[in-house]
């Protein structure tokens, strides 16, 4: 039996951003839920976990600041990846995470495939659900960040906006947070953990590598493109160390269970709270 060949899927920087986003997102959803559900037993348990109503807010605010800084840093690291002379192909090419018309076709064909009609579409480097994951966060972060900053400094906000805008801003902040939490804890967790192809955990985002066999199955167009361009040899790496693997398995499962705890309790207690 031949040992599997590993290729690079995510760089160290990308994994670090994901880890940072994971930690801040979990803290944000925990502290946010602790305040949203304060009138229920679930909210009080969470609030006690974060050291009280006021401290939960303080943690929420500072974690938000870290989140915003990480987002800005991420945008800065993206800038040199854009080839300005060759703009359109870099933005809409196969290596880009920007959605294009091919994704719409692939959504349709993949949906048909789930009903047993036709072949599974050949995905390139980023499949449409990965692109949606990325852009959902990319749209949510500025919205949550800006509305969050406006709520931290309401007096400054009301010098250029009328006070009733704070009602709208607070509503937007909560509604977008609920959207992000339900998407991440239902869809993203399902794709990353429960889907048979990635059960019990899709390790690529932590180890940064995936086996060539898996890549050929999941992203045949990408592997073919790499082969034809002769880049595949350069992508080959070593598998992750076993101690590192243990650490991220435990960490990932902890994050998963915290998320599911929030999701289930949030659903149970949702009838006792209003979004205002």
């Amino acid at each position: 039996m031949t040992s599997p060949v590993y290729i690079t899927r995510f760089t160290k920087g990308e994994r670090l951003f994901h880890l940072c986003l994971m930690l801040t997102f979990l803290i944000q959803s925990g502290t946010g839920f602790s305040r949203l559900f304060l009138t229920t037993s679930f909210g009080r348990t969470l609030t006690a976990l974060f050291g009280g109503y006021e401290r939960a807010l303080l943690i929420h605010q500072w974690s938000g600041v870290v989140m915003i800084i990480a987002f800005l840093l991420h945008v800065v690291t993206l800038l040199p990846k854009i080839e300005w002379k060759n703009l359109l192909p870099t933005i809409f090419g196969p290596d880009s995470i920007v959605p294009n018309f091919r994704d719409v076709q692939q959504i349709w064909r993949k949906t048909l495939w789930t009903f047993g009609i036709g072949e599974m579409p050949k995905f390139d480097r980023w499949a449409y659900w990965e692109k949606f994951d990325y852009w959902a966060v990319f749209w949510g972060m500025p919205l949550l960040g800006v509305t969050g900053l406006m709520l931290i400094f309401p007096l400054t906000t009301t010098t250029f906006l009328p006070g009733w805008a704070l009602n709208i801003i607070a509503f937007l902040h909560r509604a977008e947070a609920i959207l992000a939490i339900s998407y991440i804890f239902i869809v993203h967790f399902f794709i990353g953990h429960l889907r048979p192809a990635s059960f019990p955990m899709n390790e690529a985002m932590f180890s940064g590598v995936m086996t060539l066999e898996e890549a050929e199955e999941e992203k045949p167009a990408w592997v073919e493109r790499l082969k034809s361009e002769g880049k595949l040899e350069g992508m080959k790496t070593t598998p992750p160390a076993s101690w590192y693997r243990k650490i991220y398995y435990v960490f990932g499962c902890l994050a998963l269970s915290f998320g599911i705890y929030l999701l289930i309790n949030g659903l149970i207690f949702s009838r006792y709270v209003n979004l205002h």
Partner: protein
Amino acid sequence: MRETYLGSGYDDMKKRISVVWILTLLASPMFFPSSGFSQGGEETRQRSLLRERSTGYYQQYEVRPRNQRALLEVPGLTPGGLISYSPTGAVVRVRARLKDSHMGIRFYGSSRCEECHVAQAINLHTVRARITCRQCHGDEPIPSIGHYYSPLNPIRRHAYLCAKCHEGASISYSSYIIHEPVAGSQLAKENFPVLYYTSGFMVLLLGGTLAFFVPHSFMVGFRELIEKVKSKRSESRKGVEKGREGGESEEEEV
């Protein structure tokens, strides 16, 4: 002759004196202190920067600049355009300018606020900060918000009430709607349309995203499970066939 001499001289002198007087009067404003020295409403560059763009009020000088509207306008909130203290208050606006807003209500003395103001009793201030109604609305007689001497009148609410806890509260800040209607309700549609349509947009976004991605990813997972089971079965069948072949060959050898 004499009269004419005197007359002409006198006339000349009179003319000269009047010219001097007129000149003095015309020049006198130059030596008066500027009319704006004692007033706060004069707009200089620095002061105009301190103005709230949302209300037109100065932040530190509570003086309204010229040609600025007195109160905030919320599009569609009230027919007149002026912000009301509460959108849900529209149903009781008949009593909007009374000194005692509960005047003439029977058994008023033995009833509690939340018995009538059910929706108003639940808001972020009461639930989260544990503020009671009277901490803002004051003691008996509780005046209508529109009454000139009410502490909740928008002309002084920010300074009299909001600033008790929110240091530095401005007029614009105090137009935050405390008794806000439920975002997706008919009441919100009538009284706070901006909130209503924002909530409509967010519900569409949330519903649309989840309505596609939840069933879609579950379907994909289910389909993958079927494929996996199929491939495993075919593998095990192959294995069984191989085993049989091997067995047969062993038997032959024996």
